[in-house]
């Protein structure tokens, strides 16, 4: 093989790998990204049932119902609108009424949200940034105990 041909093989191989990767990335971005919505977003824009989304807001006070075996129901609110959520499993340590939560799953035809994972990433004065930001945009006043960006030590 001449020098030129060798270089051709090298460049050709590189381009081929990058092309494959690009196709994979585009496909994956089309199929596997998940949008974040607040209850008001859902009420305004409408999210088709069955589409995977992340639902963020506060766990409504007094809405958590346990004791149906391992199924738990609660409501996620942004203080303007609320969405009932069903979740089967063990809730994270930080899940509490009145605090920020992000649930991932799908809406059914009746507007109930079936979550397959629940994230509660906050301590007593922190809530997920997405939630805080979304709530602020909706004009919800956050108390001193619930402003974003106060999760202290975390994994570096």
């Amino acid at each position, binding site marked *: 093989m001449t020098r030129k041909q060798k270089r051709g093989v090298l460049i050709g191989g590189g381009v081929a790998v990058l092309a494959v990767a690009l196709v994979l990335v585009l496909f994956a971005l089309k199929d596997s990204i998940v949008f*974040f919505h607040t209850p008001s977003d859902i009420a305004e824009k409408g999210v088709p049932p069955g589409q995977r989304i992340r639902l963020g807001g506060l766990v409504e006070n007094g809405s958590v119902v346990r004791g149906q075996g391992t199924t738990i129901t609660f409501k996620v609110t942004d203080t303007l609108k609320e969405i009932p959520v069903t979740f089967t499993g*063990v809730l994270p340590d930080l899940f509490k009424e009145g605090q920020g939560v992000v649930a991932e799953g799908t809406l059914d035809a009746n507007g109930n949200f079936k979550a397959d994972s629940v994230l509660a990433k906050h301590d007593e004065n922190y809530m997920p940034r997405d939630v805080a930001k979304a709530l602020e945009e909706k004009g919800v006043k956050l108390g001193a105990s619930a402003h974003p960006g106060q999760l202290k030590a975390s994994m570096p």
Partner: protein
Amino acid sequence: MFVEFGHFALILALLVAVVQVIIPAIGASIKDERMMRVADPAAVSQLFLIAIAFFALMHAYATSDFSVLNVAENSHSTKPMIYKLAGVWGNHEGSMLLWVLILALFGAAVAVFGNNLPVTLKARVLAVQASIAVAFLLFSLLTSNPFARLDPAPADGRGLNPILQDPALAFHPPFLYTGYVGFSIAFSFAIAALIEGRIDAAWARWVRPWTLAAWMFLTIGIAMGSWWAYYELGWGGWWFWDPVENASFMPWLAGTALLHSALVMEKREALKIWTVLLAILTFSLSLMGTFIVRSGVLTSVHSFAVDPARGVFILAILVLFTGGGLALFALRARDMQAGGLFQPISREGSLVLNNLLLVTAAATVLVGTLYPMALEGLTGEKISVGPPFFNMTFGPLMIPLLIALPIGPMLAWKRGDFAGAMQRLAFAFGLAIVALVAVFAVEYRGPWLAPFGIALGVYVMAGAAIEWANRVKVGSASVDEIVRRAKNLPRSAYGTLLAHFGIGMLVVGIVATSAYREEHIQAMKPGEKLAVNGYDITFTGIDRARGPNYVEDIADFDVKRDGSTVAQLTPSKRLYDAPPQSTTESGIYAAWRGDLYLVIGDPQPGGGYAVRAYFNPLVRFIWLGALIMFIGGGISLSDRRLRVGAPAKARPSIAVPAE
């Protein structure tokens, strides 16, 4: 008093670092040896001063000096001593101090052990290294001063986040940082070489041990983080494609590529320009990781305080060093001489493929990590990119890499014999097919791709074993001859073999546990039973106990297999005093075939608890594989030919002379 001392030492370290940038750099350009020699004592004193600052902060933590803001915010008087000390780097300011400490440590190590480096190259390397230190010391002093005082001092501190009060996590950051800050040396060497406008095989020989050391620590650091997430977060998962995990994984991928391309450069003087570029990119990804983690731009379990001043500052550092490095590369790369030629099918060719795939994989991870941020910035739409994205993009790129992995070392330099390599690997193919059939037979209901994944891992492991057997002539030589050859095989060869074997194990572990994990969720009352993968689990009761700084509800489970008790598991829920936060402690029974993993959830009305039970088959292979890779790196590093400062003529047959 100590605290002011530490603060002062940190400021002094900044001044020393400024001197270390300017004097040796000027000295190198006007060929003044005395000016160049300033770099060595400067690098050592810089380390000494930062160490004083670090220990001053550690002292404040150990004595619970709450008049220091950082201590008051992150520590608590009742915390066990080990977590008081580990608390130093369990927060933003302290971990940045650790960052510069490790940066200075690597710089000082080059100053002390790099006696065989040409004087100008050494001076330039240390000047570049110090310029990184200047940037980060300024960052630390201006935006994240760990020594800020608090007046009046509170009676007690706010405590360290309880999920971080854990032995594995206490040592995870130092390892991880040693890893990704260690790549700064490769960067400094690359920039110094570009300034010199000259680069050769000797350069690669100097760079490789540093890169290898950084890579080893990054490997074990990532593994420790994964191990911690596995048993502490209580989700039974070991990798979440969380942005913070990705932040350390991208430099790992690029660093692995760098390790292999530096090998080509050292042995064959090829891929010079590419290796220099890769060294710049690897450290840039480390800086990118620091930016992602330290600025709080991403929503993640790991997010720190969102402070725009910090974010902008680190972004400026990132742009300066990455942009500056790449600009210099663009200007000077064409002056570098192209190196040795090779056929596509050759050792070099296989290492090029390795680089291509690893770098592309790092790029897909980068896209997945930054895309949500970019989209939110541009359109305001919030999305999350989760595991499915990475499985679809990263996964397929790893398949050709793993297939090629055992073949590469079987090929000769310059021109390889592909058919010969295939013949020698026949046994590995055979073993892989046996594994494939066996897994299909046992787990025929599982996903159809999984047996292929396990077979691929087995093939990689077998490939490493065959390479060893070939090199010591198992099967064709006498036993004495085999032993003699095994003894004479260089340590770096053993290192490579072990690291490749570890990769195979890792793959087997990942595929098995991802495809065949069993999960049960059930509300259980004391006395009730649950069957998981052949284990009979009985919930025997729950007790409340008091720990050093928490109360704990400990559930008791009796685990039986075939009628006899094999373990007592005690998963628990802890409520810490400060900050008042609960954590889930898992109960794990580890066996070769997999882990039985129990966590308890909410108390149920009527006295029961929600119980989550997992069976994670072969999950230990993941960390064991990483540990073997770490050990392989260490053995390779102890090789005389690689040892820093060892005479380069250790193997006279080497074709490329060092200068």
